[in-house]
C-alpha cells in the first residue's frame, strides 16, 4: 500500500497535471464522484469516533479527579488511543489533502499537530503524577482536543 504512487502523482506526470487525475478528468462520470462521497462518509465516521474517544477520556478523567484517584493504566490507555487516532487523522489528511479545495494547509495542519502535541505531552505529564491531578491534566487536554477536533471539522468542510 505504502509504495503505490498516489493517483496523478506518478513519476512521468511530474508537475504537469496528469490527465488521469480524478480532479481534472472532465466529466469522467459518477465513478470519481462516488468515490469522493464514500471518502467523505469515511471521514465523517472517523470524526465521530474521534469525538467519542475524546468524550470518554474527558468524562472518565473528570470522574477520576472528583473521586480522588490517580490516572490508572486504563485511563492512560484511552489517552494513548486518542493520540494514535490523532496521528491517523494527520496521515489520512495528508493523503487526502489534494481532494479538498480551499483549505489552508497551515491552518488545518496547525490544529492537527497542536492537538497531537497537547495529547502526547499531557499523557506524559499525567503519567508522572500520582495524585488525582493526573486525571485532572487529561481532563484539561481532553476538553482542548475536543474543541480542536471541532475546529478541524469546520476548516475541512
Amino acid at each position, binding site marked *: 500500500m505504502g509504495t503505490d504512487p498516489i493517483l496523478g502523482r506518478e513519476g512521468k506526470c511530474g508537475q504537469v497535471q496528469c490527465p488521469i487525475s480524478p480532479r481534472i478528468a472532465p466529466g469522467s462520470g459518477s465513478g470519481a464522484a462516488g468515490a469522493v462521497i464514500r471518502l467523505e462518509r469515511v471521514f465523517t465516521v472517523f470524526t465521530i469516533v474521534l469525538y467519542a474517544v475524546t468524550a470518554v477520556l474527558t468524562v472518565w478523567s473528570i470522574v477520576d479527579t472528583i473521586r480522588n484517584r490517580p490516572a490508572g493504566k486504563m485511563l492512560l490507555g484511552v489517552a494513548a488511543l486518542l493520540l494514535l487516532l490523532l496521528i491517523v487523522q494527520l496521515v489520512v489528511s495528508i493523503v487526502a489533502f489534494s481532494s479538498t479545495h480551499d483549505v489552508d494547509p497551515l491552518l488545518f495542519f496547525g490544529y492537527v499537530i497542536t492537538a497531537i502535541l497537547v495529547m502526547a505531552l499531557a499523557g506524559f505529564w499525567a503519567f508522572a503524577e500520582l495524585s488525582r491531578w493526573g486525571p485532572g491534566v487529561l481532563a484539561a*487536554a481532553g476538553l482542548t482536543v475536543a474543541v480542536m477536533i471541532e475546529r478541524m471539522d469546520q476548516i475541512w468542510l
Partner: protein
Amino acid sequence: MALRNAHPSPSPAKRSPYSAMHTGPGRALTAVYGIFALSATARAGYQVIREFDVAPVAYSLSLVAAVIYIVATICLVIGSRASHRIAIASCIVEFVGVIAVGILSFTHPEDFAKPSVWSTFGIGYGFIPLVLPLIGLWWLSRVGRSVRAGQQERSA
C-alpha cells in the same frame, strides 16, 4: 505500576523544594499553562504569517501573550527559586495584559477587527485567560509560603 517504580524521582535532598510548583494541583495548572502556550503560539504564528496586515495590533498582542504563556510554563516545569519568582512576575504581567487588552478592545475596536487571545478579557477562550493568572498567583504564593515554612523548621 512496576514501570513507575523503575525510575524513582531524584532524592528529595537534591530536589528544590520549589519543585512543588508542578506537583499536585500545580500539575494541572502547569498543564493548562502548557496548553495555552502551545495553542496561543500556534494561533499567533498562523495570524502573523498569513494575515498580519489585517490587525497588526491584535496579532502582535497575541504573540506577546504566547511568549508569556511559554515563559510561565517553562518556569513551572523547572521549579526552582528563581523560576518561582519569574513565574510570579509573568502571572502579574499576564493579568495586567488581559485587563489592558480587554479594555483596549472596547475603547479601540478598530485595532481589534480580528480577535487576539486576550481581547474582550479572553472571551474566545471561555475567560480562562482572565482567571488563570489569579489561580497561578494563588498557587505560587501557597508554594512560596510552604517552602519558607519548611526552611524555618529546618533552621530551628
